[in-house]
């Protein structure tokens, strides 16, 4: 009985230490240039700001993740990315679940202010997120996603609202003038 009690006490101390370490590491990452792996980071500072014509985004299908920063709030996270028909898409799953609604705050924030900066291979692109709720492109996109990642979402998941899909579209000229890096 005494051994069980001592084991429990040690377990609680270890849980306290690990919880504190996780919270501290997550908070510290907010002051860094971009996210690390799962913890959100601060604004994307480093890297050349792309100013050319709209690229063919097909190359992102060979990129594992990108760094995406909202302007409001100015926080960044690492997310999956895929391209269909030369356009770039990002998405967020589990949006109908309780955990998803707590954990995934950036999609709702992006609906309020769609301006974002994405960084791919060290190059920053000023863009805006346009939510896609329906359309034939969704099935094509989810097919690409399923090949690239361990994900089994479908166009129906997007239409039901469980997966939020955004096209990473060019910004309007007025948005660029207000954006970062200028």
């Amino acid at each position: 009985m005494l051994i069980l009690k001592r084991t429990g006490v040690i377990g609680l101390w270890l849980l306290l230490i690990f919880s504190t370490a996780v919270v501290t590491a997550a908070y510290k990452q907010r002051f860094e240039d971009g996210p690390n792996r799962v913890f959100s980071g601060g604004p994307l500072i480093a890297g050349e700001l792309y100013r050319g014509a709209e690229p063919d985004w097909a190359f992102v299908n060979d990129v594992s993740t990108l760094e995406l920063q909202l302007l409001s709030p100015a926080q960044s996270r690492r997310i999956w990315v895929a391209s269909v028909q030369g356009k770039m898409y990002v998405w967020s799953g589990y949006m109908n679940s309780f955990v998803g609604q707590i954990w995934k705050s950036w999609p709702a924030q992006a609906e309020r202010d769609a301006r974002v900066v994405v960084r791919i291979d060290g190059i920053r692109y000023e863009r805006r997120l346009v939510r896609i709720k329906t359309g034939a492109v969704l099935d094509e996109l989810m097919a690409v996603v399923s090949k690239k990642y361990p994900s089994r979402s479908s166009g129906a998941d997007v239409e039901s609202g469980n997966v939020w899909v955004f096209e990473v579209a060019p910004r309007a000229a007025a948005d660029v003038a207000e954006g970062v890096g200028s």
Partner: protein
Amino acid sequence: MKNVYVRIGLVVIATALSVWVIPGVDDAVESVFQILVLIAST
């Protein structure tokens, strides 16, 4: 009982400082957290 709260406070402060100051500790903590999330989600 008061002694326990003091101990908890000291452990929290020592852990937070270690993660904040010692290079690489935050990255290691994030790695472990990522593995736990992956295990929990499968």
